[in-house]
């Protein structure tokens, strides 16, 4: 028997974070991610030097993370859609200050309060920065509890490596669902001490700030960030392909939707339909190249999202007019079964054959 434990997604994030050396967590309760906040409350105080704070608001929580990160702690906050909207001020500040932090969004139905069911309506918010100003956050989209654990650990390393906020974009279902997990070994932290504020000692004092009043200097800061983002786009794209080899129709889906898509594809393959899947694991940077390359030999794509259609824009941008893209979306907290999705795929597949 392996060291696998059967654990819910929200707990897996918490455990992976602590194992990765997260020593500061602040959060505010919101369904469907309360189990993560509770896990941190119970376990962070046990971790040596660990701090847990139930903050008065999402805004306070992310700003506590800002402070903790500047002081050298691996820091994390988590929430679900409406709470993530509140955190955008702090995420923008983290990006501007070039401070590492991990932000977890277990998405629920929206807009507004919406509901507490699994949804994928926050794709635009996550991949376009989300707050004000010219910036990006790395966005990781796990599709299983194991991947939630693995990507949480990676998120801390990526945040340090690029001194940038990293978002884990899950949903209510990946958070609540239990699957066996084996936790990976954390890597030793590599983060230059010079970025940590801990008092000037006898030396020169430092400051970290986002305010740059001079236009030319602000512009230079913007371009500096963009140069960093280009490096991230070069190095950090992740995706999975599934049965794309002889496929005539490609489904593109991320997160839990990709799991449902795999179920649908397996059914269709059993009846001889050549359907495959491209699953973006990083939503920003978006795996545009593999989609573009795939379009060299396959010209039919179906984007499936638990939203009214957001990632489809990135797919179209990646294709630059090549191929034909259709869409199947289930917003509002509806989780279609593989059979339901398969019906939508069959309709599209008939057009392929026609």
């Amino acid at each position, binding site marked *: 028997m392996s060291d696998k434990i059967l654990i819910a997604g929200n707990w897996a994030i918490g455990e992976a974070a602590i194992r990765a050396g997260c020593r500061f967590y602040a959060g505010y309760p919101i369904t469907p991610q309360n189990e993560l906040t509770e896990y941190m409350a119970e376990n962070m105080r046990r971790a040596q030097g660990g701090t847990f704070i139930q903050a008065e608001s999402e805004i306070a929580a992310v700003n506590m993370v800002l402070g903790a990160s500047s002081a050298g702690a691996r820091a994390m906050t988590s929430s679900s859609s409406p709470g993530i909207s509140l955190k955008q001020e702090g995420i923008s500040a983290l990006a501007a200050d070039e401070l590492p932090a991990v932000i977890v969004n277990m998405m629920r139905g929206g807009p507004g309060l919406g509901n507490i069911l699994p949804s994928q309506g926050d794709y635009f918010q996550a991949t376009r920065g989300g707050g004000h100003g010219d910036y990006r956050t790395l966005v990781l989209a796990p599709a299983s509890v194991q991947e939630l654990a693995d990507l949480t650990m990676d998120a801390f390393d990526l945040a340090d490596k690029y001194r940038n906020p990293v978002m884990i974009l899950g949903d*209510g279902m990946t958070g609540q*669902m239990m699957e066996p997990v084996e936790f990976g070994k954390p890597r030793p932290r590599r983060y230059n001490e010079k970025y940590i504020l801990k008092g000037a000692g006898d030396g020169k004092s430092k400051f970290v700030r986002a305010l740059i009043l001079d236009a030319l200097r602000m512009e230079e800061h913007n371009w500096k960030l963009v140069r960093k983002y280009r490096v991230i786009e070069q190095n950090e794209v992740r995706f999975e392909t599934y049965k794309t080899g002889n496929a005539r129709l490609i489904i593109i889906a991320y997160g*839990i939707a990709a799991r449902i898509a795999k*179920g649908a594809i397996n059914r269709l393959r059993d009846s001889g339909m050549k359907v495959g899947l491209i699953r973006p694991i990083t939503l920003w940077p978006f795996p545009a190249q593999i989609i573009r390359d795939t379009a060299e030999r396959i010209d039919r794509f179906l984007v499936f999202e638990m939203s009214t259609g957001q990632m489809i824009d990135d797919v179209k941008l990646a294709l630059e007019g090549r191929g034909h893209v259709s869409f199947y979306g289930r917003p509002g907290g509806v989780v279609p079964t*593989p*059979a339901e999705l398969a019906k939508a795929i069959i309709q599209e597949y008939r057009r392929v054959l026609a």
Partner: protein
Amino acid sequence: MQIKTVFAGFGGQGVLMMGYSFAQAAMFEGFHVTYLPSYGVEVRGGTANCTVAVSNEEIASPVASQPDYLVVMNNPSLLTFQTRIAPGGAFFLNSSIITGRPKRSDVDIWEVPTAEIAAELGNPRVQNVVMMGAYVKMTRMVSPESYLKSLKSILGSKKKAAMEINRKAFEAGFNHIE
């Protein structure tokens, strides 16, 4: 092989624990598993359900289009799920309180009077484990040993007495069905 089971009943009947204990037992036996609970508003006093998928290969979707088995503890859950079960599947039905019977001839139906059996054991709270005894026996996905090991890890080592009554409940359910 990929088998999906829905466990459903009232909140408080231990429905989520049934699914979790089974999923963990399947994991002990080396299967791929997913456990998907209903959550939020609907579990506050209302009905509760969870879906457990067990497979010898990676599980594509944790969401079930057509579950193979339904373990059903109350009337409303039977109404909700009876048409969704795959042909050739099976129902494990708490006959102590479920008055209706599914109008389907393409599934097996196993009736378990969990309340009466638990009453004989002197503990009405172990009805869910009685049901699991019957379920484990007839589905043959996990061994009784794996299931009891899973149960033990859930109850914790401190509660020896609790484990004992649950073991009896499991055996009673297991032996009830021939």
